[in-house]
């Protein structure tokens, strides 16, 4: 598995965000940003995610020109977008494109939490929708890495409407026999979880990823039943029967390869004969 060409400017040493123990940068990178002391899966940038998932150099970004407007002239939104853009070098919290995984073509979208918490506004919704539609057009499996706090409130109702818009595109994949695999990474919440993320054919998750509908603040106030200690984690959601498999990041590429190979077999056959 490629170790990744992501942003690794962390010097010789790094510190685990969870257990605070010191890590050797080279080992940390080799372990795909998993702490070897406590197993914590650190959040990845979209660039790191692409590097440790797809065949080296195979990812071709599309729709990169899409950028947010400020349709509601929402307080501080324009500034927040500008800061996020400068910080990440991205136009939005979703990167979309085409890639290969073990030689097999896939259509992919990767959410980047570092861009405004991966929140889904018009651009994020459009990119996810285009990705799923592209799966139908290319007759190609779709892989989406989710990482989002939910809908982007700064675009008001426009953001809410990205939920049905993206879900509709999943329905298109369904009726066209296009396999769609979602990977819940830390965190996958609210409006994203309650739309395209939860209706994938196969749902994988990274260990301990935060996965839930209501924000922690709302949730705490509203609880009549005492939440279990692992409430709103991938493990909790798996127990509820709402996802298929929790996969260690080091096994993730292999799992995706197997799924794309088997679930996408009918598409590749069709391509050969047609």
């Amino acid at each position, binding site marked *: 598995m490629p170790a990744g060409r992501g942003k690794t400017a962390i010097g010789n040493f790094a510190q685990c965000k969870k257990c605070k123990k010191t890590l050797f940068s080279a080992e940390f990178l080799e372990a795909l940003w998993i702490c070897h002391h406590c197993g914590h899966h650190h959040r990845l940038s979209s660039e790191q995610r692409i590097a440790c998932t797809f065949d080296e150099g195979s990812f071709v970004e599309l729709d990169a020109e899409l950028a947010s407007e400020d349709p509601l002239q929402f307080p501080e939104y324009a500034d927040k977008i500008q800061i996020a853009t400068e910080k990440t070098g991205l136009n939005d919290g979703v990167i979309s494109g085409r890639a290969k995984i073990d030689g097999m073509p896939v259509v992919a979208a990767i959410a980047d939490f570092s861009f405004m918490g991966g929140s889904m506004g018009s651009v994020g919704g*459009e990119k996810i929708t285009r990705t799923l539609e592209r799966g139908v057009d290319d007759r190609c499996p779709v892989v989406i890495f989710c990482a989002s706090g939910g809908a982007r409130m700064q675009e008001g*109702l426009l953001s*809410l409407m990205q*939920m049905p818009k993206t879900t509709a595109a999943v329905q298109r994949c369904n009726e066209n026999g296009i396999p769609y695999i979602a990977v819940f990474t830390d965190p996958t919440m609210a409006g994203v979880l*309650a739309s395209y993320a939860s209706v994938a054919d196969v749902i994988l998750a990274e260990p301990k990823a935060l996965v839930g*509908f209501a924000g922690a603040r709302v949730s705490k106030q509203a609880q009549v039943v005492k939440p279990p200690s692992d409430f709103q984690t991938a493990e909790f959601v798996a127990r509820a029967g709402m996802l298929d498999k929790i996969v260690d990041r080091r096994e993730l590429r292999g799992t995706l390869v197997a799924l794309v190979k088997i679930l996408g077999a009918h598409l590749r056959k069709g391509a050969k004969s047609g």
Partner: protein
Amino acid sequence: MAKTWKEWEKPVLELEELIEKLRVLIDAEADATKKKELHVRLEEFEKRRDNFIKVRYSRLGAWEKVLLARAEPRPYTLDYIANIFTDFTELDGDRRMGADHALVVGPAAMLDGRPVMIVGHQKGRDIQQRAYRNFAMCKPEGYRKAMRMFDMADRFGMPIITFIDTPAADPGVESEMRGISEAIAASMLKMFELTVPVVSVVIGEGGSGGAIGIGVANKVYMQEHAIYSVIPPEGCAAILWRDPTKGAEAAAALQLTAQSAMELELIDEILEEPFGGAHRDPVEAAVTVKETLVAALADLDKVPPKKLKEQRYDRYRKMGRFQTA
């Protein structure tokens, strides 16, 4: 800043109370001259009340709309059902896990006898009813019950009418355990599969995922004083300014009114409410909704089933504002 509808409408409500008292006095008065005098006073009061309402309702801010959308006397789904349809039979249960009374569902007939399927959030007016209805916050069972109805309607070729009036989907532990997110997503997905007409009316609160979970339609209408929002204004204020009391500022920023939704081209039409709001005349409010539904279904009847599905896809496909530079 008023926190409730009652607080905000206090001057009008006080006037209305006075008017009621005067009416009782007039009825009890035997002396014709005095009766006439009282009548003059009554008319004065009524004029004052009407002027008051006119002025207040002509400049409603986003926050006032929030208060009105949540007003307890506002007609709820069951009120509209009673005033618009006949032969309604409420059905229940998701056939998987349980019953959810935050949602009212079942078949009914339009006044011309045409069968339709109704799915709507239901609020409660007193403490018991509010608890029974879970404040109109659906659990996964609610959306799964709705999906049962959507399937049934699709099989029998019945148009679907949904009434939206919820603060949010249920945020409790049990809802998370039973997959509230999946239920909302699956319900939306189901609505995109339908080959029958779907019409949706936001009659009060359109509370984010809880609302859109039954809100995917060919035509979407909003009552004049209804709201539709990605997040409750108080929640937005808590995140933005760490101050949930700044709901009014957040409501303005979120542009959650029917008028804004229309400007953003996210709904098809705003339905005018009776003078002083739907709660002042639920019957008249229902007449407008009924006429709208009749016209909408007549329009959608001209569209072939497969096209209905495509039209629904296209309707949502174009939603969003972004730059392509």
